[in-house]
């Protein structure tokens, strides 16, 4: 399996028993540490801050944000696109890599899927909040109402509703089905009866019979097949929110592919940003080896290059189009009042990843961590540039304006990290962060003579 000279995906000297113990102990045996408590407290505080901001928002209206005419979309949409993007890594890793038989995915897929779920949860929040009248959000759903009206199907926002909700549901099922055998393991290994009971209920009566395993494999494969196209469709649809508009800087056919690439790019960046500290904190270096990090880095490099290609094509097209509005928009991005944002995103998304050409860097967790961090920032900035700089100076100079997030914008953005991290902390504490069954299998495979 391993090419010679390559770090194995599991450190040697593990058998099924030890693997299981190592993973389950994190939840069952490990005492409640200061680190976890502190971290969770912090995350939860942020979450509360967001709730406060949302309360004020519902009370006063979206006017508490920085949005205006001409820039009627701001942080909310930026955050939405960014979080959805991050949500792509999980499914990509578990589904696509599964279908591609990439054994190295096993020890990180559970974690990545969880991350996906939480990211989608955060993302789902913003489209609702950004509505002027959130309490009538259900008008976007097709149902036979008393007005004799239906949603307006030409609008990408309606497509969004379906794309995002489908994605959320499928990733949830995928994640949970994958969890079932492990939940059973937890049930069997947990001492206190109530805990056994809870895990037992969640395990849906898994007994590990051959029939169970057959069904399980089939279901998992099916869901993988189902999830794979979604990875590509969701962000394509999201990108259409912009591509369908006539705004210079939005109206571009390259958006779907380049948004998907960007999504996976940012997704893996987020995986690394979280994986590297977690792996350290819980001493999982043996399972999440340098090889994993390196592969993630490679994918980042690849997708990063695609994104860069996207940027270059955009520049070229605006020159090639000879469209005065498009050309002005491009120049304005590079040299206008929001130029700093544009150059920052170029630095983060185009320049930084180039470092990943070097194995030394790919295999140095700390550096990787910071590169990933930069990419996260860069991807957020990219969406900011797309949304704001395109809108603040479009067709009518007389209507040009400027936009800046208010404290409420920032509180909501930072608060959403709170939501994300809180969920993540709970996940690490209550569920096996690495797929036990798949690890067992992996170890067994390793044992068998090639």
């Amino acid at each position, binding site marked *: 399996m391993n090419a010679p000279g390559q770090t194995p995906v599991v450190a040697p000297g593990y058998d099924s028993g030890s693997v299981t113990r190592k993973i389950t102990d994190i939840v069952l045996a490990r005492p409640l540490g200061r680190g976890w408590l502190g971290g969770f407290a912090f995350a939860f505080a942020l979450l509360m801050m967001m709730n406060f901001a949302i309360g004020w928002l519902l009370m006063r209206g979206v006017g508490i944000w920085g949005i205006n005419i001409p820039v009627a979309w701001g942080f909310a949409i930026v955050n939405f696109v960014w979080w959805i993007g991050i949500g792509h890594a999980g499914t990509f890793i578990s589904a696509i890599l599964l279908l591609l038989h990439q054994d190295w995915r096993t020890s990180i897929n559970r974690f990545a899927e969880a991350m996906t779920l939480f990211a989608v949860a955060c993302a789902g929040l913003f489209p609702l909040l950004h509505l002027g009248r959130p309490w009538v959000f259900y008008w976007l759903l097709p149902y036979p*109402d*008393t*007005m*004799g009206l239906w949603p307006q199907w030409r609008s990408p926002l309606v497509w969004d509703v379906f794309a995002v909700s489908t994605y959320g549901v499928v990733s949830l099922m995928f994640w949970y089905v994958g969890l079932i055998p492990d939940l059973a393991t937890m*049930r069997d290994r947990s001492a206190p*009866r109530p805990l056994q*009971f809870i895990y*037992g209920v969640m395990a*849906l*009566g898994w007994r590990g019979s051959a029939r169970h395993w057959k069904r399980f494999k089939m279901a998992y494969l099916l869901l993988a097949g189902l999830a794979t196209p979604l990875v590509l469709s969701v962000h394509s649809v999201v990108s259409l929110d912009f591509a369908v508009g006539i705004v210079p800087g939005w109206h571009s056919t390259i958006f779907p592919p380049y948004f998907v690439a960007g999504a996976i790019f940012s997704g893996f960046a987020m995986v690394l940003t979280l994986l590297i500290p977690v792996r350290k904190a819980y001493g999982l270096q043996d399972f999440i080896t340098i090889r994993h990090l390196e592969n993630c880095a490679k994918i980042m490099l690849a997708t990063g290059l695609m994104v860069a290609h996207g940027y270059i094509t955009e520049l070229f097209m605006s020159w090639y189009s000879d469209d005065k509005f498009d050309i002005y928009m491009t120049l304005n991005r590079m040299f206008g009042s929001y130029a700093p944002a544009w150059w920052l995103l170029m630095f983060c998304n185009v320049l930084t990843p180039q470092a990943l050409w070097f194995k030394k860097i790919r295999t140095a967790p700390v550096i990787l961590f910071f590169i990933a961090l930069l990419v996260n920032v860069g991807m957020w900035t990219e969406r900011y540039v797309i949304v704001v700089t395109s809108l603040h100076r479009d067709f009518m100079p007389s209507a040009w304006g400027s936009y800046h997030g208010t404290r409420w914008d920032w509180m909501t953005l930072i608060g959403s990290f709170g939501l994300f991290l809180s969920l993540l902390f709970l996940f690490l504490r209550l569920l096996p962060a690495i797929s036990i069954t798949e690890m067992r299998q992996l170890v067994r495979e390793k044992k068998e003579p090639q």
Partner: protein
Amino acid sequence: MPQLFKRRANAIANATIMGGGLIFLGACGVVFALGRSDYWTRKEEAPAQPVPFSHEHHVAGLGIDCRYCHTSVEKSSFAGMPPTETCMTCHSQVWKGAPVLQPVRDSLQYGRPLRWTRVYDLPDYVYFDHSIHVDKGIGCASCHGRVDQMPMTWETQPLYMRWCLDCHRQPEMHLRPLDEVFNLAYASPQNQFLVGRTLEEQNHVHHEGLTDCYTCHR
């Protein structure tokens, strides 16, 4: 170690999974139904009025024409509510001392208007115009029902937008001859469709634009 779950746990599990789904659907169904219930729309609910005015008595009994009280129904968007004077034109002679009419007499004496409770209450963003409907051959009864059979007045329609649209989409099914507009007992003929087509011609009803948003909303 004893068994964690009894045999029937499976049954329970299945039940909860199925049940959960059903309960959710049920809840949706309830909300959906409630929004369409008469309770919600106050259909066929006769609110209390300062004076127990009976259309049945005045219209069916005395044969007073709608327009005697609702004077502006042919001129204005608002059908018009009779000023106290109108009531007193008769009631200064008949039922002079009737205690039920005390509020009316007070109203005239102290110049305090009567405060009726609206029965047909459209949202403020709906701009309904009585005059044009009457002018094009929509009968009072089409929306207000057999008022001449109502001791107290109630709403006979849910007033959903969909209900408005039904008529605006195919007015021919609801048109009647202009001289039948105020006839509450008028029954549309079997071949209403054909009749409606000719009435459309006669009453100059223009289809196009009837379902424009701006026809009712501004």
